[in-house]
């Protein structure tokens, strides 16, 4: 408990936490509402989205889908960066050394980091939901649409969002521990989340086995889960797997990333 409190205190007061959350909220508002609103009011619609589709994407009742569709790629990348920085920076600052000589077992220290990151990520998803809901109600009111609050189905979308966020958090933590620094962890993570999986999908159109593989890679699984709970129209969202299959793969990744990071943290010398 002390480890979670300690980590939470330092993450809470870390400007990087709020900068990344802020950037993500601005992105989700800009791409989810501002551009759609402008397109709806006289923009040049080259994506051949019908007016009805634009309106539907901004309706308050569809806010769950709006939250989850951003997470497989760009939201995930932001979360990965946060986790990789939070864990990797400790090696350069020497704070892991301070943490591991403070008293708690290494497993407890790692659990503290994961627990605090988990709380921050839950907060990020909650803020995304609140901000999206606020934006959608604002747009609906401005446009004079009939609107209603999201139904119980929103919890499914939020649950999927949390699972996707947990996977990217675990991935970032794993990279931070493996590379023992923030720069390489962030670089590799972003490369994977934004470039590598997309390149593999491109190769997949030529090679069948690669195509099958891309569906179950971390980003692919996240995209498939987002697609299964109604997220659509955003980069990285897929509809190749069922929601259950995608969720099971994501759970597997969480276990593997967190387990491997903790194992390395416990076993490796800190020199």
């Amino acid at each position, binding site marked *: 408990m*002390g480890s979670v409190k*300690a980590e939470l205190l330092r993450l809470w007061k870390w400007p990087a936490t709020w900068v990344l959350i802020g950037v993500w909220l601005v992105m989700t508002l800009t791409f989810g509402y501002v551009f759609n609103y402008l397109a709806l009011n006289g923009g040049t619609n080259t994506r051949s989205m019908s007016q009805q589709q634009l309106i539907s994407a901004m309706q308050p009742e569809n806010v769950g889908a709006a939250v989850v569709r951003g997470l497989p790629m760009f939201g995930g990348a932001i979360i990965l960066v946060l986790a990789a920085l939070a864990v990797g920076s400790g090696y350069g*600052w020497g*704070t892991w*050394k301070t943490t591991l000589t*403070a*008293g708690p077992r290494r497993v407890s220290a790692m659990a503290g980091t994961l627990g605090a990151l988990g709380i921050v990520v839950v907060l990020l998803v909650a803020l995304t939901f609140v901000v999206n809901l606020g934006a959608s109600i604002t747009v609906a009111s401005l446009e004079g649409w009939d609107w209603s609050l999201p139904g119980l189905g929103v919890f499914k979308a939020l649950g999927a969002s949390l699972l996707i966020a947990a996977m990217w958090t675990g991935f970032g933590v794993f990279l931070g521990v493996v590379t023992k620094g923030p720069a390489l962890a962030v670089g590799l993570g972003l490369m994977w989340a934004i470039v590598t999986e997309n390149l593999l999908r491109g190769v997949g159109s030529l090679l069948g086995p690669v195509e099958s593989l891309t569906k179950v890679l971390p980003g692919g699984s996240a995209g498939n889960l987002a697609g299964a709970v109604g997220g659509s129209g955003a980069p990285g969202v897929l509809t190749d797997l069922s929601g259950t299959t995608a969720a099971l793969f994501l759970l597997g990744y969480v276990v593997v990333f967190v387990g491997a990071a903790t194992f390395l943290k416990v076993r490796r010398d800190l020199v």
Partner: protein
Amino acid sequence: MIVTTEKLTKRYGDRAVVDEVSLSVRRGEVYGFLGPNGAGKTTTIRMLLGLVKPTSGSARVLGEAPGTPRALLKVGSLIEGPGFYPYLSGRDNLRVHAARRGVGKTGVEAALEQVDLVGAAGEKFRRYSLGMKQRLGVAAALLGQPELLILDEPTNGLDPAGMADMRDLVRALAAQGQTVLLSSHLLGEVEEICDRVGVIAQGRLIAESTVEQLRGDSQLLIRADPLEKAHVLIEGSTVHGDALHVREKDAGVLVRVLVAADVDVREVRPLRRTLEEVFFEMTGAA
């Protein structure tokens, strides 16, 4: 004994960084862990704190295995410079560390007061001078009133005033009965502060004793004329250039003997080996 190690060894590949080190630190003493850079001091200390696992041998810290919560909660440490979050204030950094050690607000303020950092506790750590950073490191080590304080090169990078401040701080802690294991390559520092010394070179502990014992018996230097006659008169003396060296005895008696034999005595003074001389002899030989 507060710390004991038995043939503690750490190898990286074929290279033994720490080679069968057996040392002991007694309760209430300031133990100087002396050695040149790269001798194996920090690796030994990291093994005592559980940060590095030994290849072979064993260690006990306050009767516990190194790195266990029971041991760590009774030890405060500062290893190779302080590790703190640059964006947090000194006080917040201590609060984070205190939360891990189960220490409350009062403990944080007491530690800040002990190292004279209360006035600057609200400033960001990254704005601290090197001396302030080191003092904050000592404050963190003092949280929870540990039974053993391990300070690894606490004066590294400090200016002379900062070094003097740090020495005063360690002296003050020692005066309160705090057991301190102080690693350093600064001989003057160790000579001034420490009760006992362990000398490590190339991974091996080559000596462990009090500073006095390490220096060996003090001697007298005598310049006299004629030197040969004085040499014959003073039993056990040895000739070194134009002077005699003799194990320290009553100088007055020796002078009387020489004067009575019509020998001119031109200089008599104690001749003590400094720790530096002893250290270079030892580490040179190692």
